[in-house]
């Protein structure tokens, strides 16, 4: 998996590319947190459009970023969610914490 960092009109955007599983999540999450340490954005967009696969490891990644943003008083927003990723996040009730696109 590859992580791309961008700035958009609201703040910053993280684009996840490829397959998000346990193997990929470990390094990706550490990398994203290190980047948040440096940039401290108040609004973080998590763009999942480029994912080709996601299992339950994606739930823990989203929740970890949600907690991190909430602790800073910031907002996490998920955009461009492919149907397979939506099913996984919905199974875990993530939409109660983080708004996910309809």
């Amino acid at each position, binding site marked *: 998996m590859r992580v791309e960092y961008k700035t958009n009109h609201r703040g910053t955007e993280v684009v996840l590319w490829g397959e998000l599983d346990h193997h990929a999540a470990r390094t990706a999450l550490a990398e994203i947190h290190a980047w948040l340490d440096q940039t401290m954005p108040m609004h973080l967009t998590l763009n999942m459009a480029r994912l080709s696969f996601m299992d339950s490891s994606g739930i*823990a990644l989203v929740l*970890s970023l949600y907690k991190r943003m909430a602790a800073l008083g910031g907002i996490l927003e998920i955009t461009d969610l492919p149907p397979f990723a939506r099913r996984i996040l919905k*199974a875990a009730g993530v939409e109660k914490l983080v708004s996910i696109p309809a």
Partner: protein
Amino acid sequence: MKKKILNTLKLSFPSRSANEALARSIAAAFVSQLDPTMEELCDVKTAVSEAVTNAVVHAYPDRVGTIEMTLRLLEGGEIDISVRDKGRGIENIDLARTPTYTTGGADRSGMGFTIMESFMGYLRVLSTPGRGTSVRMRKKLGHE
């Protein structure tokens, strides 16, 4: 439930996290003989990824052990997948299968078994503490 086995693939591999992707790709390739829909293929890949990740993360938390995956094609367009380890085992299987129950801390969400069951339709878990765990999943594929 005795159905004729039309094809079988057995593989065994070390519990390294890089093998999670390998295992689900092989399962997807095996299932392709049934001409599944994209959604069915995604269901199988996800369920295999959950089962194999559990063996990597929970069965062998501090060592590399062996994971065995058996793929079977049954008559009537059904797929039978078993993932076995000789790791730590599970004390209370009913509890382990409860949504959001996890011993994995913040890195895990406790949704693996729930996803396997809902994506495959049939899930059986057998385990002996200290001896290992066997996860078996079945799904009927195809558009007949």
